[in-house]
Structures are given as C-alpha cells and as structure tokens.
C-alpha cells in the first residue's frame, strides 16, 4: 500500500477539527534538512546532516488556542494529535476571558520556491571541507593568529500549510551561510575578528560569491591589529556604523519593540514588553528625519520572505518608522484587530513543525540616504567607525541598550585612522535614533540575517533579515569594555 500523501494527512486532521465545532484550524507538515560543517583550529570538527520531519496542528475553539505536534507522521498519529489539539483548545477556552478573533485573510492556494543556482546539498562534501580547511590555513598564515574557525550551514524546508479556511500553500525553501573567525594573541590578550556571509535564501552561489579565502586574509590581519590596538578612552563620540553592525542594533532596538504581541503583554514573562505602547502609534518621534525603517517581507532572498507566514497570510511591505515617526507594528491575525487593523501584516512564524507560530520581527531595514561612507566619516571630528557584531544587551522594554562590535577604528578630523579595542557604546533607544544625522546611499546597502532570534516559551529561534547602509550617530556615550577597576 502506498503511504498517504501530505494532503491526505492534512485532510485527516482538518476533518476532525471541522467536526469539533472549532472556528479555525490549520496543519503544518514539514521536512527540514540541515547540513552544518564546522571547522576549528585547522581541523573539521564536525559534519552533521540532520533531518527533522513532523507536523503541528493548531486549533482555535471558542476563542482559545490549542496546539499539538508530533514527529510520528502516520494514519494513527495525525488524528490523535488533531484531537489532542482540540482538547487542549477546549481547556484553554474554559478559562478564556477575552476570545481570540482572527482578522480575515483571503484564501491562498500557492507554491513558494526559493530560486537558486547551485543546490548546496549537491555540492560535493570534499569541496566544502577543502574550502573550510583552506580558509583556516589562510587565517593561520597571518603571524599571531592562535585560533581559527570556519563553518558552512545550509537548510532546506519542505512545508505544507493547509487551513480550515481552504488555504493551501506548499513551500520549498532554501537558506545558507558561511563564516570564518581568527583569534590573535598578544601579551596575554586575545582578540577575534570574523567574516560572515549574510544568512540568505540563496543556493551555494552565496558561498562562492563571498570568496572566503580573500576575506580570511583580511580578517586575520585585522585580528592581529586589533589585539595590539589601544583601548578606547571612555567619553562621547560620534559613531559611524556599518550595515552588519547596524543589523543587530536595529534588530534589538527597532525590531523587537515593534512586535505587537510584546506590546500587548504576551511576552511579559520572558522576552519582555515594549516602550512602543499603542498610544505612541502615529505620534511618537522614534528617530530623526533621516530614520525611515521599512518592514519588507517581500524582498527576494531575505529570510522572512517566505511568500506567506504561518497564519497563511501573504508577505507584505509596510512602514515601521517614516521620517522618524513611529507608524507601524509587526502583527499576526490575532493581535492585529486589537489595534483596529483589518489585516495582519503577515509576521507570524514558527521555527518548525513542533512550535506554535508567534509574532516575529519582519525584515526591517533602514532606508538609504544620500551620503557616501567617506562623506559620513568626513563629517566627524572625533568618532569611531564600527563594523560587525560584538557584545549586545538590552532591557526588557527595549530602552537601555549596550553594544560592542567586531572591529573599531578611530576617526579623527574626518579621517579613519587606527584600530581601537574594547569599544562599547550604550544609550536609550529613541535618543540614539534621534541622534542619527546621516545615512549612506543605496550603493552601500547590505543585508544581514538572523537565525537565532530567541523569543517565546518554549523558546523558538526566529529568522529575519535587516538591511542598511552605513549611518552616523552624534554624541554617543562610549565606555571601555573591561572591568571598571
């Protein structure tokens, strides 16, 4: 006997949900494959090929949610899990105060496929391990490099979403990334410098275009310069931040506070709430006139551009901050009506079949300005140019943040001079974004993705991409990143 198709499994689950009297239900069946090759200190430390297959059923019964999931995809298990989801939803409904109401969404019947040139899973393994070994050798060619690492990551998700509203979307999604890191030692100190390709929905061409070997020479040289560089003197500086660095600053201080579920208290026990309360929508000056933040889940190759979210809502593009004014949230079908919106923004995503979808940051990017990077730097008398990610931390309402970076250069009288080490800056989110007085033009725009954005209980990893051109911020408080005595 042939095994049932995914559509037959889906129909089995939805049939039970419809019969239960539930107002809504959906099923996501997913087959994910991840290949992760990790190199450490000139050796291939691990090669892992992981397959993760299962399904999750979500039920809205009398205004309350239930969700159940299983890795056993069988004719017995699917109805059992669907029934469990119904039963859990009934339990939730028995104590519900305010009933969940979903905003309408048109029925979608579609297939979404990531375009790619080279399937990473068909690239010979030897080619990939050779690349990583050669990359680490290149890192070690630089005198003073004590440690190295390099890795490649690829993921393919086959997914079927079917809802009781007759939406049916099939996904064949691909994503990849590669990186390398050099750590230099000098007089008992150590310092690292990394190169990361962005996480993007592309094939192995992402890795080939990145040229890890060329980048390895560059970051190794930076690591040895960084470890010998003078520590920063604490004080106020103008900062010029590169797109990779900004991706994290935007993620933490612009992305999370605009998740409407946080604003409404859903994450109060873990990820936190938000200072961007609903009374501020449309009236709060988040940043200067140079700051326009756009959520774009339709931009090709970006992580959140999956065609549809896990509510079955089509991906969209909308403003978060327009000319400095806060104007939009990331929403799903449940929270959108709570602020009077008639359609979800399509930002409800789960990190796999076993997780329930929650509101996630969209692909939020900083709109380009009109300057060049040299012009931004030329306008700084005493400042610091920062590249890449380092230390990061922010309070649970997203006001008080602190960031480091991967590499720092002192700017004096409009010129980038020597490297610095141990640079940490901190500030309060709206004050910082209101200090932005220039953004570089579109030719400098770069995109960086995140696949480990932690949120939810049980914890889930969110995926999204943040694009930016370099931007300049005035009079930011900088401290030295080492013990205070």
């Amino acid at each position, binding site marked *: 006997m042939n095994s049932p198709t995914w559509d037959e499994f889906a129909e089995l689950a939805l049939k039970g949900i419809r019969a239960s009297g539930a107002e809504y239900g959906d099923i996501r069946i997913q087959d994910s494959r991840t290949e992760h090759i990790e190199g450490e200190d000139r050796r291939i430390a691990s090669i892992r*090929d992981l397959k993760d297959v299962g399904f999750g059923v979500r039920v809205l019964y009398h205004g309350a949610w239930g969700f159940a999931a299983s890795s056993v995809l069988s004719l017995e298990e699917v109805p059992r899990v669907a029934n469990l989801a119904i039963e859990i939803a009934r339990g939730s409904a028995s104590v519900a105060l305010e009933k969940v109401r979903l905003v309408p969404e048109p029925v979608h019947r579609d297939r979404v496929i990531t375009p790619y040139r080279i399937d990473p899973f068909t690239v010979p393994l030897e080619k990939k391990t050779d690349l990583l070994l050669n990359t680490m050798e290149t890192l070690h060619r630089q005198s003073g490099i004590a440690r190295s690492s390099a890795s490649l990551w690829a993921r393919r998700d086959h997914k079927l979403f079917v809802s009781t509203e007759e939406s049916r979307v099939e996904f064949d999604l691909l994503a990849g990334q590669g990186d390398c890191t050099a750590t230099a030692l000098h007089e008992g100190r150590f310092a690292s410098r990394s190169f990361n390709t962005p996480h993007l929905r592309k094939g192995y061409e992402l890795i080939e275009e990145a040229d890890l070997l060329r980048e390895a020479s560059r970051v190794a040289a930076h690591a040895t310069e960084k470890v010998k560089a003078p520590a920063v003197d604490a004080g106020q500086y103008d900062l010029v931040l590169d797109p990779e660095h900004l991706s994290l600053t935007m993620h933490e201080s612009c992305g999370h506070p605009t998740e409407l579920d946080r604003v409404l208290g859903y*994450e109060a026990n873990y990820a936190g709430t938000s200072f961007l309360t609903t009374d501020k929508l449309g009236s709060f000056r988040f940043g200067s006139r140079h700051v326009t933040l756009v959520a774009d889940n339709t931009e090709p190759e970006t992580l959140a551009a999956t065609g549809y979210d896990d509510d079955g809502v089509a991906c969209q593009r909308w403003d978060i901050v327009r000319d400095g004014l806060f104007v939009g949230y990331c929403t799903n079908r449940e929270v959108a009506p709570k602020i009077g919106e008639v359609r979800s923004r399509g930002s409800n995503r789960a990190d796999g079949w076993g997780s329930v979808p929650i509101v996630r940051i969209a692909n939020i990017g900083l709109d380009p300005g009109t300057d060049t990077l040299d012009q931004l730097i030329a306008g700084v008398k005493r400042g610091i140019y920062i590249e890449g990610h380092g*230390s990061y931390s922010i309070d649970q309402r997203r006001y008080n943040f602190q960031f*480091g970076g991967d590499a720092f250069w002192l700017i004096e009288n409009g010129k980038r001079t020597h490297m610095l080490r141990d640079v940490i800056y901190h500030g309060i989110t709206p004050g910082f974004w209101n200090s932005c007085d220039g953004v570089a033009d579109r030719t400098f725009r770069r995109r960086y993705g995140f696949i480990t954005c932690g949120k939810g209980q049980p914890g889930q990893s969110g995926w999204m991409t943040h694009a930016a051109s370099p931007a300049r911020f005035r009079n930011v408080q900088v401290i030295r990143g080492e013990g205070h005595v």
Partner: protein
Amino acid sequence: MSAGNATRWPKMTGREEFRFLADLVFTRSSGDETIVTLHDVHSGTTRFANNQVVQNVDTRRGTLAITVAFGRRHGTASTTDFTAGSIHDTLARAERIARISPEDPEYLPPPEPFPFVARETARPETTAAGPARRLEYANEAIGHCRMENLLAAGVVSTSAASVGIAANNGLFGYEARADARFSLTVQAGDATGWSAAAHRSVDHLKIQERTLAAIAKAKRSREPIELPAGPYPVIFEPSAVAGLWTWLMWSLDAKSYDKGTSPFAGKLGTQIVDDRLMLCNAPNHTDLLGVGLTSEGLPSMPSTWIDHGVLTQLAHDRFTAQTHGVQDLPTLDAPVLSVNGAACSNLQDLIKRTDYAILVTNFWYIRTVNPIDLTLTGMTRDGTFLVKKGEIVSAIKNFRFHDSPLRAFQQIDAATGPMEAVTAETGKMLAPAIVLPEFNFSSVTRF
C-alpha cells in the same frame, strides 16, 4: 479537560526499544566505530498573559542520531523518523560523510562500557502530568493575581524524555528523565515581580508560594526612585547569583584554557574568588536536575570545581581530558554554589543585617563584554530595591551592570546557604543569596 485514552500519546522509546534500534544500526554499519544516540522528548507548556491562557502546546519529538567513524574520519546524521527505512537511510548518510570527511586529529573512539548510576531522573507524577494539570496550575497563579487586581504572565511546563547512547563497542546507557517548570511575572501597572521554580517533580513547583512571592515583589516595585549609576554594595538573590555564575561556568572550557583564550588562563590551581566559595556538582541532589549519563556517553559524578576559592577543574571534552591526563571528566549538570560559614538562614536575615545596599532579584540579558577578564553586562529585572538600615525602603529603577564575577566575588560580606535558583535564560542550580561590598552599575533605564 480529560486525559482519556483517545488522547494518550504513544509511550516513550523504552530501554529495550532503544537497544533494538541501536542493534539495527550496528548490524548494518560498515564503520569502525558506530555510535547511536536517542533523544525522545514529550513536552507541554501552558502559557498565560494578561490573566488568561494565550498559548497551550504539546509536542512529541523523537530524534535518533548516528555517528560513524572510519579511522579518524567521522560523520553524523540524524532523523526524527524511527522506521527501519529511515534509520537505514540515516546510517547511509552518516557513512557517506565519514568516508569523505578529512581525518580529525582529535577524534577518539567511543568510551568503554560503563555501569551508569541509576538516578531517579524521571518522577512518575511529572511524566503523567498533562495539559489538565498544567492548566490547573496556571489557573491557580492567575486566580491569585486576579484577586489582587494584578496581571499574571507566565508558564507551566512539563517534559518527559528518553535519552540513550549506545556504541558498537558495547557501550550502552539509557535514562528516562522528566522535569517541570513554573515561572511567573506579575504586573502591577508599570511595576513587575517575578518568581520561578524547576523540579523533577511537578508536585514541588510550589505554585502558591511562588505566586505570592511574585505578587509581593510586584507591589513593592511600584513608584521606583532613580539612583545614579555607579558602584554600590549589593544583595543578590539566588537567581541573580546564578545568572552571573552561569556565565562563569560556561567559560571554564579546557580548550580555550590551553589556547590562552580563556579568562582563567594560567589560573588552574589558584584562588580566583573569595576563599569561602565552593562550587560543586551534585547530581544526586534530589532538588537538582542532575543526570546519570552525558551526551558523550560518560557518567555524571559528584565533583568539586572551586574549592575554597581555588579553581580545581576545567570543563573537558574527551580529547582535552586525554591531553591533561584527566581520567574522570567532571560535569556541571547539577551545580551547587555555597559559602563556607554562611551565617544567615534566609534572605530576610541578610537584609536585616545590611546597612545600605541595592537588592537585586534577577538579571536579564547577560552577555560577555570582554572574555579576557569575563566582564559581563546585563540588566536588573522584576524587583530591584534600595535597602537601608535593615529594611527595603524603596523600589529603584533598573540598572545596567558592567562588571566581572571574577572581580565582584573576590570578597563576600555575608551569605545564606544554597537555595533554589532558576533564571529565565539558564537552567537550575543551588546558590546562596550573597552580599557583596561593591558591584558596578554603569547606567540606569527608564523604569
């Protein structure tokens, strides 16, 4: 809500079923060495916010991973599909990787068979707890908050797992595990209070006690005053201590030590913190979540890591252990931090004895600022207070800190005995409440 037969889950992978699956792999494997690991988890979480359930989930995921080695070439593949065809495919994928992967100079064959200690890692009351029990606990917490006109947000979760490791040299270990967790944030307007618990037994979550503690903190957190950033004497509750010490424990890896990229480089066998501090692993402790076997197929044993302030152990993998001549790999699955001669019986005693200090309930978003001296940053959260002359006199706005536990714990002024310490971002340990003469707060936030 019932827990009738119609919704009962298939039972977890048992010891003999795991042995059968492993044997299925071994008989087919062409590798010199083959290792099979099992991680079969059934977990559920009832999540609430604004005094009602917002998420109610139940997930079963079984994962079987196969590692094959030819000489020093090795590869790993895994699957969540336990049918014979899928397991054969997974083995073939692991073999394919192993045949063409480069030789790994640090590869070691699986450990020799070991008679793992049988610990009571799965309590039946937790394994049996389902959505109905979780909902009952959530309702209890919500009910207390409603009565006080406060908002409750939190989780009740239970988890049962079958964990195993087997190798074709005869190594075989299997363990059933279970744990239950509760955490609650109470919102009193802009003020918040928090409490959390984790235990092998769902009966030991102490929902009422924890809920009342969080309510009291939330009420006390109203109308915070703002103090300037700077160094202050502090009283850290156990969760705050655990937050800092978790990062210290994560930084103990031997490879970084050997390569000179560790904050402890050159400090093994030397005093790194106050000479009354002891850090031990206590996997037999019934209030901790210790395990019988590790993911490498080694036993978890009681051990001492910091003895009277002296660092005595590093966190080894099997390769660095061999390099260092370490026979028994120490683990830290059940950490206990204690202060010798701690004179105070509880937190209230500590407060009464304190003339002036900042009392910190918990930290949030702790991250490394500088791995050389283990400078960390993070925020205080859900209950930060000013203590004067033995009493809490006011809530204060939350601080960001910028300091190293290696500096801050050089001198301890007073401490309690070890108590349950659960944090939002880490696991569970036993840790004391501690008074330190100085801790550096670098900035203040707006609430």
